[in-house]
Structure formats: structure tokens, C-alpha cells
């Protein structure tokens, strides 16, 4: 199979995504990602010379709302799903 992505790139992306991969997983991911990217090559068969790049499936623009305040969540509810909280704050491992 054609190599689109190297194992070094897989490791880099894993670090960025905070994923810890074993060597076996790194190999498997490299293989699978290459297969996915090769599949994407099918799209290159289309002639898109006159088609502008788009990021949205539907043609919408300038969707906005007025500057109006809505009620916020009750704090207890906002904190409810947090792995750790002190009733006031979300509590996370120390980061500086």
C-alpha cells in the first residue's frame, strides 16, 4: 500500500491527542490511517478545477443572533458531570 502517513506522524498525532499507544497499536494505526487516506484518493478522481473550496454542506452565511442574555445553568448542574469538583470549581490535576 502507498504510504501516506509515517509512523512518526502517527506518534506525533497521538501526543497531540493525548493518546498513549503501544508499539503494536502505533503500527496498526499507521496501517489503518494509510488505508483510510488511500480511500480518500478516490475523491481526487473528480475534476474540481472549477469548484471553489467549501467547508459547509449547505450554502448559508451570516447566521447570527441578537446580543441577548439567557439564563445560565445552575452551578450544581454545570459541575454535575465533572470527574472532580469542589461545589464551586471544576477541579483538575495541577497544570502550570
Amino acid at each position, binding site marked *: 500500500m502507498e504510504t501516506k502517513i509515517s509512523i512518526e506522524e502517527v506518534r506525533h498525532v497521538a501526543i497531540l491527542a493525548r493518546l498513549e499507544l503501544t508499539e503494536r497499536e502505533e503500527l496498526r494505526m499507521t496501517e489503518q490511517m494509510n488505508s483510510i487516506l488511500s480511500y480518500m484518493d478516490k475523491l481526487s478522481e473528480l475534476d474540481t478545477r472549477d469548484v471553489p473550496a467549501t467547508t459547509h454542506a449547505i450554502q448559508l452565511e451570516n447566521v447570527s443572533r441578537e446580543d441577548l442574555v439567557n439564563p445560565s445553568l445552575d452551578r450544581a448542574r454545570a459541575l454535575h458531570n465533572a470527574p472532580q469538583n469542589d461545589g464551586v470549581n*471544576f477541579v483538575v490535576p495541577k497544570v502550570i
Partner: protein
Amino acid sequence: MRFEPVIGLEIHAQLLTDSKIFCGCTTTFGASPNTHTCPVCLGMPGVLPVLNQQVVEFAMKMALATHCTIAPYSQFARKNYFYPDLPKGYQISQYEFPLARNGWVDVATEVTVRRIRIHRIHMEEDAGKLVHDEFQPVSYVDFNRTGVPLLEIVSEPDIQTPEEAAAYLRTLREVLRYLEICDGNMEEGSMRCDANISLRPLGTEPLGVKTELKNMNSFRNVQRALEFEIRRQTALLERGEPVIQETRLWDANRNVTLSMRGKEEAHDYRYFPDPDLVPIVVANDWVEAVRAKLPELPDAKRERFIRDYGLPTYDGEVLTSSKALANYFEAAVGAFPQPKTVSNWIMSELMRELKRDDRDIEACPVAPDNLAELLHLIDSGTVSGKIAKSVFEQMYATGKRARAIVEENGLVQVKDEGAIEKVVDEVLAENLTEVERYKAGNEKLLGFFVGQIMRKTKGKANPQLVNDILRKKLSSSWNQLP
């Protein structure tokens, strides 16, 4: 070898909208932690952010006020990184297609006026606030600020000195405040500044290796951090050592910048267009509609003050340094049409009191028409200039009207010649030795007599009359005790 600094600033300004940029939570500052959040700004799965219209309008105002070109097409992008102040794992910002580009502002320092170009202005969301526990290995996260709208204003590397950097920052703050889109409070973090700085041999073109400075929460700190960094980089280059490209934090207690090396990973933000937010398309008539709403900006106001009120440049600069101060001046001049006199009182008495109490002009206890009332009392000779200063202090302390204070305390100036003459006679009679010395040629003693007379009249005697009568009495015709 001599080096010259090349400085660029990145400014973040919190916009004064009522609600956040992509949800309806309030932007009010200072609330109890995590009481201003909702599924959108907490980054819950499946929610849909919707752009606050006011943010675009505010951003367009700033863009036009700084002579930028507004892009006909702009877009939001996701900036991906992991940090717990960001609940989604990405910040919604703009990348390839910012709202505005290619502007400028003229920045005056004591030595020059220089045009600093603006590279781009874009909209983004603010992150949350972290507090680190001193004793335990935990940090506390408050997401109230998450999603508060920010403008990021990026200058070109046109700034040449730390003074100019501070002046540029002040200029932008002034414009933001005139537009009433940001309160510009650096201490509270509603306006923040990062700086990029590198050195190059004087007169050469290629840029040196830059460092990025953060954590400077006042104009003074921005200037001091840059000054330190110039010294640090100069010393490195003179020793033939390389400058390392890195982020450094300003430590205001120790007056140094410190490397964040080791704690910072290489940036790889993997920006991509945010599929949840549709493009912003700005037609020319929208631009013109916003332009029509722009208020008079600092430069224009300053020039008008100098031209129409005949004020010196310095007065024009001070009085237009904030819109509220300029409005105060114009209200006072409306009620007392002697611009220079009003300017003098504002710049000396009024601003001294405000500065002492660390108060804004908005919170000034002396209303502009009350200052005008006091100036009328001086102008008509009802009170002396000297008494007026103490009247002003009482006006400031109590908020009472000028006339009321003058009447309650019996401070009306004595202009009755007979009454003044009587006091002059008393003083001369009490100070015969001094009278002799004056007559022997020690004319400096005139001030002594005036002082004595003013003391006896509690400062209420009309100084001109006192002088006239005193000189007359002391001249040769007066040689007899009454």
C-alpha cells in the same frame, strides 16, 4: 556592535457585549465561579454555537477606526490544544480568513509620531480562568469567562522602542474606549498584551530570532518587560550566544522575564474551519452603515479641541485622553465659555483630586456645570482665585454647589476699599520695623505684608486692591502712624 529592537504587539480586547460570543450567558465580570455557563460554553457534545451579531459590529467598528480593510468573506476556525481553561479542546478563533487586515494607527511618543501598521484583527472566544492550589497538586477552573468575545489585534513588527510599544497600546486603548466596545482595563484583564521582540544589527534588514513575552498586565509592565528583554538579548548577542525562540513570562516582582522552556510544547494547533459556524459575508453597504455610526475618534477630537477652543497641543492631548474627560470639558465650557481657564482647572485641581482617589472622571463628585459655577464666581470677583481652590476642594469632598459653599462659609471676597485700608493700616502699625526696612529698599517685604493682610482677612481680601492700597501707603506719602 549596536542593535535595534523589532517589536510587534498582539492585543486581546474583551468586547462589551451583554452576552457571550456564541451563547446567551452573561459576560458580567466578577460573579461567583461557574455561575455563567451553559452547554454551549461548557463544550457539551452536540451543541450549536450561534454568533452574536454585536460582536461582528464591534469588530467592524474597530477595524474601520484603525483604517483596516474589512474582508468581504471571513470565517471561524478551530484552534486545537489541550489546556483545562478550554472545555472543548479547541478555541473558536479566526485563522485563514480574519475579519479585517492592513490597518494603521499613528502613535505619538515624546520624540516622534510614527505610523504603526496593523496586520490583522480577528474575533475569537476567551478561555476560562485557572487558579492553582498552593499546597495540593490541583488547579481550579472557572468557566465564567469562557466564550466572552475577544478582538485580537496584531500589529506589524513596526515598533522600535519600549516607549513606542506602550504608546501604541495606549493609542489602541483610547480608540477602543472611544468606540465603547472595550473598557480597556489591563489590571482586570479586559485588555491584555503579548509582545514579540527580536534584535538585529542597527540598519540591517533581516529579522533576528524573536521571543514572545506574556503576563504584562499594565502599560508600565509592557515597557519594563521589553526594556529587560532588550538588555537580555543584547548581552547574549554580544557574547556570541544565540537567542532561543521561546515564550517568556514577565515577573513584575523581580523585574525579569523567565523562560517557560520545558513547560511549553511545540505549537501544532491544527486549525481548520469550524463546521458549526457559517461564513460571514460583509457587503459594502454594511461596512458603510457601520462607518456612519462611528463616533468622533481621539485624533479628530484632539485636533478639533486645539483648533476650535484655541487650546495648546498639550491641553488637547490631555483632555481627549478619554471620551468622558473630553465630554466633561465640553460640558463645562458650555457653561463657562473660557476654554483655557476651564482646561487649567481640569488639568490641575480636578485631575489631581481624581488621581489621589484613583477615580475616573465618570465618578467625579463635581459636576461640570458646578465647576463652571465656581469659575463664574472667580470671574465676577465674588471669590479670589486662592479661596476658589479651597472651595473646589470642598465641592469635591461634599458634592455641594460652589455658590452654596461660598455663602455658607462667608467666603465672599472683600472688595470694600475702606475695609481693606483699615486692615492694611493695622498690619503696618504692627510691623514698624519691617516698614522701615522696606523703605530702606528691601522691597521683597511687600510679600510679607500681603501675607499678613491675607491672614487677617482669612484670604478674602481682593489681592489687587490689597496690592494697590499697600503700595500707596508704603510710598513716601505715608510716613505717619494712623
